[in-house]
């Protein structure tokens, strides 16, 4: 059984289709479509969503990461990848004044809140057995908030990302992605310019637009 058939079967299960005949049917249809189609790996316009975790720390927010994406074909291999992301973490106050009277913040890996609006370029790589890998770079404008510390700021994270996806239905692909994000942040409470560094992993669903 090919990986695409497995992915289709998993997707059918996730969508609540009854096990057995309907799942097999969905998988077989997806596999058949994939094997007979010579369509490009992605549609010229797609919408996507991602659910995952962001690992932060220090002055970098972390927690649950929810993203919405818009893909737009730029060239044969490259797509514009616009995104809006919400990072939702918890955490108590973690900022204090050290003995030199400088403010220091030592938040946990899953603390704080962030909203990102950004975009970049995604390049599709040569895949195998129905899997379509990609790499991408992007930049974003990020609003940062650590509520219990009354700490707010803006950041400009740059991200290097990689992912893979498989088509599970005519217009639907599912996959996973990981991204390393780093960049400067301008924060209040006298912190000024501080570096941000985080890691994001997540699962994605992308839908081709007509």
């Amino acid at each position: 059984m090919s990986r695409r058939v497995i992915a289709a079967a998993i997707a059918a299960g996730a969508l609540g289709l009854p096990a057995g005949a309907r799942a097999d049917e969905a998988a077989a249809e997806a596999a058949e479509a994939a094997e007979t189609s010579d369509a490009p790996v992605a549609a010229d316009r797609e919408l996507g969503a991602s659910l995952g975790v962001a690992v932060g720390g220090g002055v970098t927010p972390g927690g649950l990461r929810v993203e919405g994406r818009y893909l737009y074909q730029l060239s044969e291999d490259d797509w514009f990848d616009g995104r809006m992301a919400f990072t939702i973490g918890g955490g108590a106050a973690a900022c204090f004044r050290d003995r030199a009277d400088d403010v220091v913040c030592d938040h946990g890996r899953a603390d704080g809140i962030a909203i990102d609006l950004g975009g970049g370029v995604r390049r599709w790589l040569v895949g195998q057995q129905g899997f379509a890998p990609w790499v991408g770079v992007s930049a974003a404008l990020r609003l940062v908030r650590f509520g219990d510390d009354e700490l707010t700021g803006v950041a400009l994270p740059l991200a290097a990302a990689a992912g893979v996806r498989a088509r599970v239905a005519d217009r639907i692909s599912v996959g996973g992605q990981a991204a390393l994000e780093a960049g400067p942040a301008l924060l209040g409470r006298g912190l000024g310019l501080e570096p941000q560094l985080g890691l994001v992993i997540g699962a994605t669903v992308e839908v081709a637009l007509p």
Partner: protein
Amino acid sequence: MPRWIAMVASLLAIGAACGGSDVSRAVGARCDDSSECDDRCLLPDADFPGGFCTLSCDDDADCPDDARCVEDEGGVCLFACESEPGCDFLGEGWSCVTRAGRPEGEARVCRGG
């Protein structure tokens, strides 16, 4: 371990190390108010120059490893020391002194005055 995983782990470790400090909101941070600390603030005066975040305690087990529980202020954690240079990181006005330990004995700790 694949090299890229090691690289990412190293970057995250460096990121976590940035902003590191000898003191914390629990014990040692400057303060003017308890809201700046995890537990309580010993207000700035000659005994605690610059203010001192600390934890209430009944014995050493209530304090971080590098602190001792002393009778001052109804029982608080202060940084342990062996000699004067051991308190230099707290700034001017701090000395290594002997205080009554809690619940008993004596303890060498950093304190002003």
